[in-house]
């Protein structure tokens, strides 16, 4: 089987940020993403659950430079005022060429 070395980026955020973050992902070179609802507790405590609606867990598989751009963008734009956590992890992906945009 043909496996490609890529990076999975995971971002867990307040529900109001979903559209903004996913728009950014695509703009930074991701070719797609998955969003699922998430529950949990963090340093911001109940503040994260304040707005009606659930936190979201956004995931995307991208090349290393795109992953770094996405994380930098999330850090610059959202970390100061919102409940957001983001990380990346190397992974091996089947059909990996699908996840790399031509210009990335």
């Amino acid at each position, binding site marked *: 089987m043909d496996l490609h070395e890529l990076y999975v980026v995971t971002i867990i955020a307040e529900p*109001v940020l979903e559209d903004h973050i996913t728009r950014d992902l695509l703009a930074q070179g991701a070719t797609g993403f998955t969003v699922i609802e998430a529950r949990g507790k963090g340093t911001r405590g*109940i*503040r994260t659950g*304040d*707005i*009606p609606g659930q936190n979201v867990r956004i995931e995307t598989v991208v090349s290393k430079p795109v992953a770094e751009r996405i994380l930098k963008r999330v850090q610059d734009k959202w970390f*100061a005022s*919102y409940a957001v956590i983001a990380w990346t992890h190397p992974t091996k992906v089947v059909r990996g060429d699908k996840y790399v945009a031509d210009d990335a």
Partner: protein
Amino acid sequence: MNESGALLEILRANLLSPIPLAFALGIVARLLKSEFSLPKDIYAGLGVYLLFALGLKGGVELASAPLGVIVVPALVTLGLGLVRPLTSYGVLRSVGRMGVADSAGIAAHYGSVSAVTFIAALAFTDGVGAPAEGFMPTLLAILEVPGIAVALMIGAVRLGGDRPTGDVLHEVLTGRTLILLGGGLLVGALSDPGAWEQVKPFYDGAIFKGALVLFLLEMGVVAGERLGDLRETGAFLLAFGIVMAILHGALGVVVGTMAGLSPGGATVLASMAASASYIAAPPAVRMTLPEANPTLSLTASLAITFPFNIVAGIPLYYAMATWMAG
């Protein structure tokens, strides 16, 4: 019977009706840490039904109402939408000594409106035999947005920085309340009266009132979840949530009566003016003024002002309206 006796009688009659009682049951269930809550899709579905029904009925009435009757109440309502965020912001800043972000955030909630409070006021005025004018849902649609916009602008100007105000206003304008209520008004106004009669039993009458009681039960659970936050938000906000409701309610009674509304209509307008948003405003404030603490605004609107209006505010505004009309 003297005036205070009459007010007490109205308060008692309101308390012993299904809407506040179901709401109280929801709160009690939450305080007892019961596992009960309405499945969230049913809660959302009931919300859609209530708003759309309100829009449809209002639209049908709107089609048959002469334009001249609506213009002045509509302008007065727009005025309330512009003034309420300013009074709220002023009180929060000067009396409450709160910061710009928190003041503007809370003012956005108190500049907008709670549709459920509005519907409860309609049910109340129907119940006491003083039904409000049929075009009232149009006024609800008018009052929803301006207050949020004014408060967000205050915050954005005072705090500076790059804020997605345009995006956020688009989200508010296309939110479910305006689509269902505004869209329902249009559908109702355009519908042929014969065709409306065929669907009317589903949207008007016993089914609507029953759905409202069920919705209030879950609202009680939602409000009950916030009661614990009152310890954190403090005495000033508790007083603010009640005093502001009474002040805005009294203002609504006065301008509503002067605009030619019946006592029932003035009561419903006052209840709208006295209410605070907890659906449209929170995400808009979170996106535009992230520095504001959402616990403050949501607790004030949901755990203080909303229960106050359901239990005591609406009958109080009705007493004011009948006194002013008489």
